[in-house]
């Protein structure tokens, strides 16, 4: 899981793009995903995200994440299909009965939801995989005018994910070694059974946070105006692509206003 949110270094066109362009693309995907709910439009969006991932040569690295997300997507699909009961009934979830009907519209609407979820999350993952964190922080602060503290929080959260996953593994090993079991319990017991892992994790996290804060203090954090080591340069390709995205966005909004893309 940690690998999904880490920067993966490859020499691709996408990697060479400025962080601004990529962040803009992720936002663009988000807006498009929310604009439409026609399954065809959303599937097209998903395909476009996968194509970008392929162009960035990170598709293979993201396969485990995609696999995991697909499970959620399937659940989302089923839930949506159950609640959407317009149209013709295709089958019943409980076979040979009349309970829990699943309709064709239901399925298509479910597909739309799943495609939307996958597009949004994957675009974000592609962004993280192709952009160095410090470049993102720089862009967020300079171009998107985010206060540095927030961008910094974002950066350190990402940086600490692998660390905390490591801690969770160690804590759960330690508790297992004392006979603690998480598997095979009813839901209520299961929730309580997470306490031996979550409590030490929270305490350790607070401790690490304090240590990190001290380290930051002794390296001059908060001491006035900040400069940046690496610059963020926008090149021809960046401007061109941003313009294309803007155009597509305009087209998309127009289409939506005209009533296209909704079921």
């Amino acid at each position, binding site marked *: 899981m940690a690998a999904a949110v*880490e*920067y993966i270094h490859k020499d691709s066109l996408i990697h060479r793009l400025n962080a601004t362009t990529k962040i803009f693309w992720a936002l663009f995907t988000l807006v498009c995903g929310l604009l439409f709910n026609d399954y065809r439009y959303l599937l097209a969006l998903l395909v476009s995200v996968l194509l970008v991932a392929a162009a960035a040569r990170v598709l293979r690295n993201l396969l485990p994440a995609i696999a995991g997300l697909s499970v959620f997507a399937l659940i989302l699909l089923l839930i949506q299909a159950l609640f959407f009961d317009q149209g013709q009934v295709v089958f019943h979830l409980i076979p040979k009965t009349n309970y829990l009907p699943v309709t064709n519209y239901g399925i298509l609407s479910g597909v739309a939801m799943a495609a939307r979820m996958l597009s949004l999350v994957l675009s974000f993952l592609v962004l993280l995989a192709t952009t*160095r*964190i*410090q470049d993102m922080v720089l862009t967020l602060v300079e171009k998107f005018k985010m206060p540095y503290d927030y961008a910094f929080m974002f*950066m*350190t959260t*990402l*940086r600490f994910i*692998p*660390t905390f996953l490591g801690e969770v593994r160690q804590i759960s090993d330690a508790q297992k070694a004392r006979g603690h079991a998480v598997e095979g319990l009813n839901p209520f017991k299961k929730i309580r059974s997470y306490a031996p892992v979550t409590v030490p994790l929270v305490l350790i996290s607070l*401790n*690490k946070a304090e*240590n*990190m*804060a*001290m*380290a*930051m*203090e*002794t*390296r*001059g*954090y*908060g*001491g*006035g*105006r*900040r*400069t*940046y*080591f*690496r*610059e963020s340069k926008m090149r021809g390709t960046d401007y061109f692509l941003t313009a294309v995205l803007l155009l597509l966005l305009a087209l998309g909004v127009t289409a939506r206003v005209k009533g296209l893309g909704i079921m």
Partner: protein
Amino acid sequence: MAVLEIKNFTFSYPQALRPALNDINLSVEKGEFIGITGPTGAGKTTLACCLNGIIPHFQGGEATGRIFLHGLSIFNKSTAQISRLVGSVFQDPEAQIISSEVEQELAFGLENLGFPPGEMEKRISEALELTGISDLRYRSTIALSGGQKQRVAIACALAMRPEILLLDEPTSELDPVGTEEVFQILGRLNREQGITVLVIEQKTEQLAAHAGRILVVNEGALVMDGEPWQVFARQKELQAIGVRIPQVTRLAGMLGGSDKYSLPLTVEQARIYIERLVRS
């Protein structure tokens, strides 16, 4: 002029019954390599925090007495200002690393202080060179070994070009290889760059081999202050306090050694000494 001076310094944590540091007096010259040791809870970390601005800026409490850096009172300075004079390296290699890339990690402190990019480049290259990790420049920090992480931490402190390098049990979580790496670099920085080193450690064998002066802190007080042989000569006291004595020095003490020439601090020194004893 002393680079660091502590005069009658007493400090208590908020709502504490007893002071954590009691009437500390210390004078440190430029270029010294000082090892600080003592049992857990003696006040070593508290002392370090008073020298790098954590106390009082990050952690409150009551203090009396004075601390001077280059003749100027430390309490008039912000932690940002102090960070240019005192570079800190802490115990947990994981928690003091802020970025996922080594180069960015080194740039962090410099960015905070508002240096121009050209100057940053110079300092980053220099710091990487001094700690022997130029080849790690573009690596991810997360995948590094403990020893490498601590070297990165030292490089980050060095990038600020401090006069004093202050380290709090930097090798506690490291294996013998990592420990040796850290001490080698500290020795080199001290000898070649003239950086004043203050390192808190439990590993007295390393301190004996590298430090020119040893301080023993116990229950908030500075109970010993001298050259390694002077400190390790007081063996009964050290055992009562709970400070480990290097094995060869303890042996020499048992054989009656009590001065500079009869209290070896390293295996090699001990070998030469014993050979001489046996021959006589």
